[in-house]
């Protein structure tokens, strides 16, 4: 609040705004409007110059208003960077009034999204965003150490960003996410307490605790006890848990959506990745991360994660492992060309990693938000409808670079990937990358995504149901869509094609890691991702033995079991068809070994 205090008496007058827009006409209009509001305006029509200005004079600006579409740098990227480095409120501006793009903007951390032409009335109130942000920031007496936990300035900025995102999320979720409040009895308003920065470590502890308890049983009090972190209140945990669940749900949705998008884009032949997360959400989470080289590296691999090995796999897919790491949205994970914008950029997937989670949460914002926009995502929809919806901007942005995938890369939430452990670090992104790579197609992805997420969020049963449902839709490509997810067994792993299988295996056997996860072999990123979640590879027939998968799965997924199993079974069946026996054998092998590296 320091900045604001100085000007308290006549704030918002004199508020220092940096306006960025490559269009000179718009910029001039904007500048004049802002001046009419008595703000101090600096303008530039290059995002790069804007960044430079911001970096040089960190405290010289209170607010940034930026256009979305700029030639030298994408507005979303600028948004991220500003949020990360300077933690200034950013307002996006665009003539585009597509709610999906708006959502994306908000998810990326924008305070607000204005549609051109901007009216002066709207500008008169933007100063509130500055005040609000400062207020939140100043309310963070606790956990200052969170930032210290991240020695990297990079990480701390990430933490800041996360915090910012969380903040945004909080504000935005309060209205929307009531229904997500399952076990979390906390009042969302509790989130407004002094902000806790959910650093990677903290998040990791959180995830570990959640996993230990089981997503269904993870109640804030118990989580708090398990985490054993000083100064962390139950409310903090509760709100974080809520977000986490939402995140999972979104991931599911996204994957579903993705799949649908991807499905369309991808050759149907490949089975979409099945991201079946649901199952082990927790178990898988552990595996997630780190494996993949994926950005998550930064996370300390949770024990499980290593299971999935093949971190390289992830990279292979084109994820950039590490780059994404916390980089929220920009690049990296998604592998997509656009990474930045991709909303889903979940670094290092894998719920396990704390980071992921944070990212997830952050990214969640991005993709979670997508949820509403895309019909596809909703698990409630037909399930995996592979339609191409481009519902959410997120998916739209997914660069096709990944490979072919005409569709966007499925940016499945990292959750899915996480399961794989390595494979796709949970991120969906990795999945996407994978998928894109080969593109095999996620088709299944949606299912898993959805399921996984759901499962994670204590809605496991629901998710399963969804899964099933989706599974049905999945019809991927090759086989009946309704393949039930047979299981993620290692069987799946072997499927090279089907990353899914791997994913499946992953799911079933979170500990078995490796085996399927990441099937990087096939580039099908998703496959790996899917694996853990149980993503079902609808890809080619896999010869997975359903029962095998099923078995494994059952053990793990006890909670979710029901539908998931069915789903898996279905998928497996599909896969089986596709997968040749040899693969199956291989899978079996993996299965027993519990994880073959891909």
């Amino acid at each position, binding site marked *: 609040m320091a900045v604001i205090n100085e000007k308290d008496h006549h704030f918002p007058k004199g508020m220092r705004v940096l306006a960025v827009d490559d*269009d000179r*006409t*718009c910029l001039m*209009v904007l500048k*004049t409007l802002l001046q009419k509001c008595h703000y101090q305006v600096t303008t530039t029509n290059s995002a790069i110059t804007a960044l430079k200005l911001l970096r040089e004079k960190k405290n010289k600006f209170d607010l940034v208003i930026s256009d979305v579409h700029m030639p030298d740098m994408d507005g979303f990227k600028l948004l991220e960077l500003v949020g990360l480095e300077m933690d200034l409120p950013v307002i996006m501006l665009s003539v*585009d009034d597509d709610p999906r793009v708006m959502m994306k903007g908000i998810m990326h951390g924008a305070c607000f999204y204005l549609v051109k032409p901007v009216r002066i009335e709207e500008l008169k109130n933007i100063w509130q965003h500055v005040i609000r942000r400062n207020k939140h920031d100043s309310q963070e007496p606790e956990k200052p150490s969170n930032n210290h936990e991240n020695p990297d300035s990079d990480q701390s900025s990430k933490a800041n960003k996360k915090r910012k995102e969380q903040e945004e999320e909080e504000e935005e979720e309060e209205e929307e996410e009531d229904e997500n409040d399952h076990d979390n009895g906390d009042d969302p308003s509790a989130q407004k307490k002094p902000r806790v920065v959910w650093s990677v470590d903290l998040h990791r502890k959180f995830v570990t605790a959640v996993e230990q308890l089981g997503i269904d049983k993870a109640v804030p009090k118990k989580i708090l006890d398990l985490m054993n972190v000083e100064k962390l209140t139950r409310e903090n945990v509760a709100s974080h848990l809520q977000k986490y669940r939402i995140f999972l749900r979104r991931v599911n949705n996204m994957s579903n959506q993705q799949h649908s998008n991807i499905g369309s884009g991808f050759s149907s032949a490949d089975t979409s990745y099945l991201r079946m997360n649901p199952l082990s959400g927790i178990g898988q989470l552990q595996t997630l991360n780190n494996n993949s080289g994926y950005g998550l590296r930064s996370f300390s691999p949770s024990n499980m994660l290593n299971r999935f090995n093949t971190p390289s796999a992830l990279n292979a897919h084109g994820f950039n492992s590490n780059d994404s790491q916390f980089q929220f949205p920009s690049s990296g994970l998604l592998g997509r060309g656009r990474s930045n914008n991709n909303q889903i950029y979940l670094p290092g997937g894998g719920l396990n990693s704390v980071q992921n989670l944070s990212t997830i949460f952050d990214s969640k914002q991005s993709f979670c938000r997508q949820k509403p926009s895309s019909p596809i995502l909703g698990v409630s929809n037909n399930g995996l409808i592979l339609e191409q919806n481009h519902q959410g901007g997120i998916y739209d942005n997914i660069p096709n670079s990944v490979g072919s995938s005409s569709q966007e890369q499925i940016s499945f939430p990292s959750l899915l990937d996480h399961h794989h452990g390595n494979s796709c670090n949970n991120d969906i992104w990795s999945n996407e990358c994978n998928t894109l790579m080969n593109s095999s197609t996620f088709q299944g992805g949606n299912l898993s995504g959805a399921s996984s997420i759901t499962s994670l969020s204590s809605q496991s049963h629901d998710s399963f149901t969804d899964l099933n449902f989706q599974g049905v839709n999945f019809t991927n490509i090759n086989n009946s869509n309704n393949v039930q997810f047979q299981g993620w067994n290692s069987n799946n792993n072997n499927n090279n094609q089907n990353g899914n299988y791997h994913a499946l295996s992953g799911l079933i056997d979170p500990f078995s890691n490796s085996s399927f996860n990441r099937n990087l072999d096939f580039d099908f990123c998703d496959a790996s991702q899917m694996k853990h979640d149980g993503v079902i590879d609808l890809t080619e027939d896999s010869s997975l033995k359903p029962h095998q998968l099923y078995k494994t799965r059952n053990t793990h997924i006890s909670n979710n079991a029901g539908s998931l199993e069915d789903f898996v079974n279905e998928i497996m069946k599909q896969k089986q068809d596709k997968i040749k026996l040899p693969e199956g054998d291989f899978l079996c092998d993996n299965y027993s070994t519990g994880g073959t590296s891909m």
Partner: protein
Amino acid sequence: MERSQPRRQVAAMKQSLFDQGLLDEQFIQLEELSDDANPNFVEEIVTLYYRDSSRLISSIEQALKERHTLDFNKLDTLMHQFKGSSSSIGAKKVKAECTLFREYCRTGNAEGCMKTFQQLKKEYASLRKKLEAYFQLARQAGPMETACRPK
């Protein structure tokens, strides 16, 4: 201020521009931004608009010459930008054509794009002429008062 003939003419002309759907609220807002410091603010903006957008128009035209291998993404991007500028000055009809154009881009309808673009160019040119006349008249009429909303 005196109710001179020119002033009335200016007001009438402006009214007609609105009636024809060529301009929208944004234009009014721009006029409201004019003050002693920026008496010709609107004219400046419009001039700037036409200067910058002519480049955009020719880029789009160039891109449309590809005929059979239109790069819809690129067209969409260019048009998006053009739409942004146009909306900033309140060019209602032009903006509507932009939206239509982008829709055609989205659906990959090349012919639709071309047709719409032709229409857009017409609107764009016609608006330019009309605004030029308007500003000229306004200048003659003397410093403008704060814009009054057309009925």
